[in-house]
């Protein structure tokens, strides 16, 4: 059962107010990860205070780094169920967890940060992991 929207809104806006695109339907997820190519981070947001409270600021910190994906989007687990389900389908064999983050390159999953690597960690430590993935997968080509 979804949480009251008034409880969730500040958690949505913590990301959307900083340039992260909210994806609320399956078609929006498909379009976001679609044929445009390039790199994309999808943040699977959650009300879980044990983990998401560090995930959101950690992601925002990482998105300030020099090397970052072409775009960043978010779905809200437990709230926007259709969009979350579609985002998870794009993650194929990865077990569902929230909060979590997935990095795509050309529509293909190249990196995943599951919930257990977020919970109990401070935003700076989480950001360090994300930035490492950005540096590995979002670096401009030498060509």
């Amino acid at each position, binding site marked *: 059962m979804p949480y009251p929207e008034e409880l969730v809104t500040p958690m949505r806006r913590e990301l959307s107010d900083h340039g992260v695109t909210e994806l609320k339907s399956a078609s929006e997820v498909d379009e976001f990860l679609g044929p445009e190519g390039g790199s994309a981070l999808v943040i699977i947001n959650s009300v879980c*205070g044990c*983990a998401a409270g560090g995930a959101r600021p950690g992601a925002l910190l990482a998105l300030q780094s020099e090397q970052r994906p072409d775009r960043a989007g978010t779905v809200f687990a437990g709230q926007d169920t259709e969009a979350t389900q579609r985002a998870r389908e794009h993650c194929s064999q990865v077990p569902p967890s929230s909060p979590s983050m997935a990095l795509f390159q050309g529509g293909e999953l190249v990196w995943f940060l599951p*919930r257990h690597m977020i919970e109990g960690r401070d935003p700076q430590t989480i950001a360090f992991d994300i930035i490492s993935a950005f540096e590995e997968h979002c670096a401009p080509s030498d060509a």
Partner: protein
Amino acid sequence: MGTFHDDMGELHGITVVVSQHDGCTWIGRCHSEDDVEVILHDAELHDPAMSDENAEQWLQRARRFGHWPRVSTIRIPRPQVSSLVRLAEISAS
């Protein structure tokens, strides 16, 4: 914004690995643990008698990608527990 449940113990909400004396292993989100039992939500069991993977292979896969939430809630009697650690503390092999 921190946890909503500050009175539930330090492992509340944390994904843990519970090893049993019989060789079975659970991964799940810890609800609570005390001298009586460990309660996990959204848990997955590795039973060496029922799996093609050994426990180490299964743990390494879970360490990288997470575990499948196959059991909504499981209560594990404490005398069956040989160890209880955070999944994030499992070292890469």
